[in-house]
C-alpha cells in the first residue's frame, strides 16, 4: 500500500448521516437474502422479526435526553447514526426509570400505532473494538 486516505464525517462529506434502508432477516419469507423493512409500513402489522429489530433500534444506543427547555420540550443528544435508528423505531426515552414499581437503568417506549411497548434496560455492555 502506497497511500492511505482517511475521511471524517463533515469534512469531505456533509455533516449528516441518513438512514437509507433497513433490511430484516426473516428466513420464513426469504432464506436467501434480507428483505426490506419499509419506513412507511403499518407498524400495527409488524411481524415478530420487525418488532424485535425495532426494539433493538429503540434500546441499544447511548442517546440521552436533554433537560426540558422553557417550553418543556426535550430532545435526544448523541450519535446521529443511533438517532436515525431510534427515529425509525418510533422510540422515545422516558424520564422515569420505573415500570410498575420495577427499577431499570433506563426506560424506552416504542410506538406500535395504537399500542406502546415499554422496554426496561437491565444491562448495557459498551463498545468493543471487535464490534
Amino acid at each position, binding site marked *: 500500500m502506497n497511500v492511505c486516505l482517511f475521511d471524517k*464525517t463533515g469534512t*469531505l*462529506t*456533509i455533516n*449528516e*448521516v*441518513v*438512514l*437509507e*434502508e*433497513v*433490511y*430484516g*432477516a426473516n*428466513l420464513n419469507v*426469504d*432464506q*436467501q*437474502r*434480507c428483505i426490506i*423493512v419499509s419506513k412507511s409500513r403499518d407498524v400495527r402489522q409488524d411481524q415478530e*422479526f420487525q418488532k*424485535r*429489530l425495532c*426494539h*433493538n*433500534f429503540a*434500546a*441499544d444506543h*447511548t442517546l440521552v435526553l436533554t433537560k426540558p427547555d422553557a417550553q418543556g420540550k426535550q430532545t435526544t443528544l448523541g450519535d446521529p*447514526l443511533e438517532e*436515525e*435508528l431510534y427515529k*425509525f423505531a418510533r422510540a422515545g426515552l422516558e424520564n422515569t426509570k420505573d*415500570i*410498575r414499581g*420495577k427499577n*431499570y437503568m433506563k426506560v*424506552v417506549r416504542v410506538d406500535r400505532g395504537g399500542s406502546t*411497548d*415499554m*422496554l*426496561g*434496560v*437491565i*444491562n*448495557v*455492555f*459498551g*463498545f*468493543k473494538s*471487535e*464490534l
Partner: protein
Amino acid sequence: MSIVVEDSGTGEVYGYVKGAPERIVELSDPQTLPKDINQQITDFAKNGFRVIAFGSKKLPALASGQEYTREMSEEKITFQGLALFKNNLKEATKPTLDKLK
C-alpha cells in the same frame, strides 16, 4: 455494543447487539443467517453504504442475585438484519479532489 432489555408487556428478556456486519455474522447462529448474507453485505458496502448489523437473543430469567453477562447476550445470537446509511459528499468535494489530482 449490546444491551439487555426486559419487555414489560411480556416479561421476556432479550439481549440486543449491533456492530460491524462481519462481526455480527460471526456471533450469529449460522442457522439464522440468510444464505447470501456475506455477498449482500459486500454489495451494499461497494455501493457506498455504511452498513451496521443487528442480532438478538432471548435470555432466561435469572435467580435473584445473578446478573446477565456480555457473553450471555452476545453468543450465538439470532441474526436480525442490516441498516444502510449514506453520508453524502459536499458539493465542493469532487471538484476540489479533481483539482488536486
